[in-house]
Every structure is written in structure tokens, then in C-alpha cells.
């Protein structure tokens, strides 16, 4: 029984409360309300997914036909009837050379997804083989004081995902370590708040691209004489700087708007400044800080793609850009795969933050 309750609590906490509803549904007899609930919670969402895929399929098909007709038309006006017929036959045969370049259909995207997974398997076995092969050599090289040979082959799609996640977490941590302490300090002091307010108001709406250029200017000079991975440094710093504002503003607001009752308690108990900040002000502003962090993480993930794309830093952003430049027959569907993966990971990250946020939150009226 207690296990059931905890399971219930956990699913509620991570915002998947419908799982326990499903469990409850199977546990007892189906009555009419349950049926409506079931319809609303499971059937309708699943139906809407199918509807979405169906619409997408039809839309893609119509776009495909438009593009194909245009190609045939063009062949007809430029090179005559024979060329047009040839083009028609070529498109119908599914030949790679003359496929219309347009929105891929759901089936094509699914195919590309599997191709990418296959590709990952091939590349990772390749990599493993390479590492095995060079292990002995590397040992002697390291012993001789030389650099070890590393695998420099093309990263797979899955590798790109992990690179992106690494960058986004580095950027998120940077934002956390900059924004939370500064937010607390400016939240505590009205003078400081008004003195840096202009800076926050001006820098908050600056586009990620401009941040990237600014960071590029600075990091380029600073890393001149080192062989560190400057693309990674540039992109994670830019991500951090772009996304930290939500946390900064929320932390400052949380700290400056602590409930007056708590401040009165701190005064009546005569808590010292340190105690007051760590025992009263910070805990009571934690929910707002985490709301800020949640926004920060989702902004970080969103700008990351744009920044990787521009900074030539490996990751999902550059994957998308390379595929777009590449223009291979399945490039478009790979881009759509990346889109879904980006969306899915963004959703997961948001859920993780939401869970943490729910754990630290308290109802304001709990102690009153």
C-alpha cells in the first residue's frame, strides 16, 4: 500500500500524474466517468498524434507534388516534351538524382532516424576498434611523453546529442554560478539593485547571436596561445550569458520580496545577517530561484542550437547546419529528426527542472 502511495507521489511530482490514473483505471471496474476520463486522457491525445502525422503526411505529399509538377513544367518549357517525360519517369522511379527537394514525409523521417541509429552503431564500433588498435601504441607514446593518438573520425548523431548536452550543462552551470549569487546580492541591496538595473534591462533582450560575437571577441584573444577547444568555450559561455537573465531577475525578485512575516520573525529572533540570509531569505526565495533556473535551462537549450550553428562548435546545431548545407537526398528528413530530438530533449530537461522545482516549493500559506 505504502509503495502505491509513493509511486503516486512520484508520478505526480514529475508531472506524469496520468500514469497513476491509468493504474487506478485498471484496478477497478469501468464506470461511465472513468470512461470519459480515459477518453480525455489517453484516447484523445493519441488520436491527436495520429491526426498530426496524417496531416503532415498529406501536407508533405501535396508539397512533393507541387515541387514535382514544377520540375516537370520547367523541363517542358526549357528542354521540351521529351525532357519533361524523362523527368516524370525519373521522379516516379524514385531515382535519387531527380527527387523533389521539399518537406519530407513522416515515413522518410522515420527511415532517416533509423539510418542515423545504424550510422551511430557503425561509428561507435569503428571507434572502439580504433581505440583497441591504438591502445598499445598510445601507451608507449605516453611513456615517451608524446600526445596519445585520438579518434578523429566523424561524430555520429548520438555523439552530437551528447556534445550538445555537455555544452548546455556547462552553460547552465555557468549561468547558475553567475546569476544566483549576483541575484541574491542585488536582491538584498536596494542601492545595488538600482545601480545594475539598467545593465540588466539592456542586456536581457540582446540576441544570442550578438552574445556569441561578443564572447568570440574576448575568448579569441584570451585563448590565443593555448590549444584548448575554443569553439566549445565560446559556445558554452554564450549559452550561459544568454540564458542567465531569467535566473538573475527571478533570484533578485525572490530575495527582495521575501514575506514580511518571515522578516519579522528573523528580526524578533534577532538572527544575524548570515543566519538571516541562509535560514530565512534563501529558503523562502528558493521556489522563485528554481522557476528562474527552469526558464534558464529551456532558454539555454533553445539558444544552444543557434549558437552551435554559428560557432562551428560540434553538436546538434552544427549537425542541422551541415545537413542543410549538405543537400543530400535524406538531409531534409535528418533535419526533421534533429528537430524532434531537440524538442524531446528540451521537454525532458524541462520536466527534470519542474520536478526539482516542485520538490523545493512550499505553499506560502503553509506556515501562516
Amino acid at each position, binding site marked *: 500500500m505504502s509503495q502505491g502511495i509513493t509511486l503516486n507521489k512520484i508520478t505526480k511530482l514529475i508531472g506524469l500524474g496520468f500514469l497513476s490514473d491509468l493504474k487506478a483505471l485498471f484496478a477497478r471496474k469501468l464506470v461511465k466517468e472513468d470512461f470519459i476520463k480515459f477518453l480525455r486522457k489517453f484516447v484523445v491525445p493519441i488520436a491527436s498524434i495520429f491526426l498530426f502525422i496524417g496531416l503532415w503526411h498529406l501536407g508533405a505529399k501535396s508539397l512533393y507534388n507541387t515541387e514535382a509538377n514544377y520540375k516537370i513544367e520547367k523541363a517542358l518549357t526549357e528542354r521540351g516534351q521529351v525532357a519533361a517525360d524523362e523527368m516524370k519517369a525519373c521522379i516516379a522511379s524514385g531515382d535519387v538524382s531527380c527527387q523533389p527537394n521539399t518537406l519530407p514525409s513522416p515515413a522518410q523521417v522515420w527511415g532517416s532516424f533509423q539510418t542515423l541509429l545504424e550510422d551511430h552503431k557503425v561509428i561507435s564500433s569503428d571507434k572502439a576498434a580504433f581505440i583497441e588498435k591504438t591502445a598499445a601504441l598510445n601507451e608507449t607514446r605516453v611513456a615517451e611523453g608524446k600526445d596519445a593518438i585520438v579518434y578523429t573520425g566523424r561524430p555520429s548523431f548520438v555523439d552530437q546529442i551528447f556534445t550538445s548536452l555537455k555544452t548546455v550543462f556547462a552553460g547552465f552551470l555557468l549561468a547558475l554560478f553567475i546569476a544566483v549569487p549576483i541575484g541574491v546580492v542585488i536582491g538584498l541591496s536596494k542601492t545595488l539593485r538600482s545601480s545594475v538595473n539598467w545593465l540588466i534591462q539592456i542586456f536581457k533582450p540582446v540576441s544570442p547571436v550578438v552574445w556569441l560575437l561578443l564572447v568570440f571577441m574576448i575568448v579569441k584573444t584570451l585563448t590565443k596561445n593555448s590549444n584548448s577547444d575554443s569553439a566549445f568555450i565560446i559556445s558554452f559561455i554564450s549559452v550561459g550569458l544568454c540564458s542567465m537573465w531569467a535566473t538573475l531577475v527571478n533570484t533578485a525578485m525572490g530575495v527582495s520580496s521575501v514575506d514580511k*512575516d*518571515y522578516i*519579522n*520573525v528573523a*528580526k*524578533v*529572533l*534577532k*538572527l544575524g545577517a548570515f*543566519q538571516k540570509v541562509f*535560514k*530565512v531569505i534563501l*529558503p*523562502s526565495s*528558493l521556489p522563485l530561484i528554481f522557476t528562474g533556473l527552469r526558464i534558464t535551462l529551456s532558454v539555454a537549450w533553445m539558444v544552444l542550437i543557434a549558437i552551435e550553428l554559428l560557432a562551428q562548435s560540434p553538436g546538434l546545431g552544427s549537425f542541422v547546419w551541415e545537413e542543410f548545407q549538405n543537400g543530400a537526398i535524406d538531409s531534409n528528413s535528418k533535419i526533421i529528426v534533429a528537430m524532434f530530438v531537440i524538442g524531446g530533449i528540451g521537454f525532458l530537461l524541462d520536466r527534470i527542472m519542474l520536478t526539482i522545482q516542485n520538490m523545493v516549493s*512550499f*505553499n*506560502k500559506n*503553509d*506556515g*501562516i
Partner: protein
Amino acid sequence: MAYLELNNIYKTYGEGDNTTEVLSNINLSIEEGEFVAIVGFTGSGKTTLVNLINGLLQPTSGDVLFKGEPVIGTSHERGVIFQNYSLLPWLTVSQNIYMAVKEAFPKKSKKERNEIVADYVEMVNLTPAINKRPKELSGGMRQRVAVARALAMKPEMIIMDEPLGALDALTRGNLQDEILNIWGKDKRTALLITNDVDEGIYMADRIIPLRPGPNATLGPEFKIDIERPRDKTELNDNLNFKKTRNAIIEYLMDIGNERKTEALEPIVLPDLEPKSFVGRF
């Protein structure tokens, strides 16, 4: 010299044209060991008065003297029980009280402090709930925690700002007895702010009505000459109780009526005439 003395206290909020005088000409003196209740309507400035005494606010003019020294800030000697419990929701019952004990007795060891916490939790009958958070407690239990937190600092004076205002009648009665019991043990000085005349009569030695604000000021005091320990059911038949109760209520009603007639003064309307729009359209 009185234990707590308020001399010609004025308190105003706002500046310039927006100034509202909340309290005017408040004079009060409380002797050591006395239990004084101040009764008044809601919004009459009771909380402002409490905050002046506990040091959260400073009077605009006049002085608050505690043991002859002017009150310039909060002090551990004056424990406060707030109207809305004001527990920290992220701490458990024992942590909430421990925080107060730690500040009040910085020299004691952790073990001694924990013993004090346990004693006071026991005193308010919350030992089974010692590790619970405020949200798991009922309103009455929360207020008990607040009482324990204020008392655990061993203050010389307890200031209670409508401590039982938000509770139901039964819980209220129980807590009144508990507070009286605790007060009776070491006879600390106590100041109770309340809007319930019966509560004031049941608990206090002296009742002072607060004439409603703005410009709230204290009315004439009523001595309660009823033997302690008082019994609630017997109290209803006590002539002295009835007399005092009626006198206080009459006094408060008179003020209320006074206030109403004041409000009924004719309001002079500005002499305006509608603009003529003829010929403008």
C-alpha cells in the same frame, strides 16, 4: 517605575499630505508579572501598537520604555507570538523552535538546546508532531508551535498579537488555558492583544480598550477582580464578570456609534454643472 511604559506615543504612516495618524497619545504602564489585555476593533491599530512595543517599529514621537530603557529594536527579553503564526514552512517543528533557542542561548551546547526544544514541545503537547512541517499541522497546532517558539527563548515578557484570532472556538478555549497555565508557572509579564472581550476577561488582570483609529488611543482601563484559576463555566454566572463584560462592551459600542455618527456628517458636494454640449456635434 513600571516594567513597560508607553509615554505619549504617536505613530503616523506616510509623508506630507498622505500622512495618517494611526496612534495618538498612547499612555500605558504595565507592572512586572501583570497580564494586560488590549481589546479593540479590527483595523484600530492594534498590530502597530504591538510592533512598537516589541521593537519592530519606532514611534513617531513619545517613548517606549522597557525596564526604564528605551526600546530601539527587538530583544530576546520580549517574546512575540504573531497573529499569523509566522512559522518557517521549510523547517520542522523542532527546527523552527531550535532556531529561536540557538539565538537566545548562543553559549549553550547543542545537546542542551535540543533539551530545551524538547521541553517546550512537550509543554505545548506537540511531542508526536515534533518532526513534522507546518503544512502537516492544523491551525491550533501551528499556533502552539509559535507559542513554544516564543516561550523557549525564556523571555521576560510575552507579547501576543491576536494569537488565537484564526482558531475555532474549541481550540481557542484549550489554547487559552494552556497559555494561562504556562504564564501561571513563572508569572512572566504578558500583554495580550485581542478583539474578543470574553477572552480578555478570562485571561487578563486588566483590560484596556483601544479606541479605533485613525488617531487610535487607549480608553479607560477595567480591572478584572476575579480569582485565579478562573473557570469558564462558572465565569458565566459570576456577577463581577457580567458587570465588567457589559461595561466594556458598552464602552466599545459607544465608540462604534460615535464613529458612525462622525461618518454621517453631511458631505459637501462640489458645485458643478454639466457642461453644455449643445451645438458641439
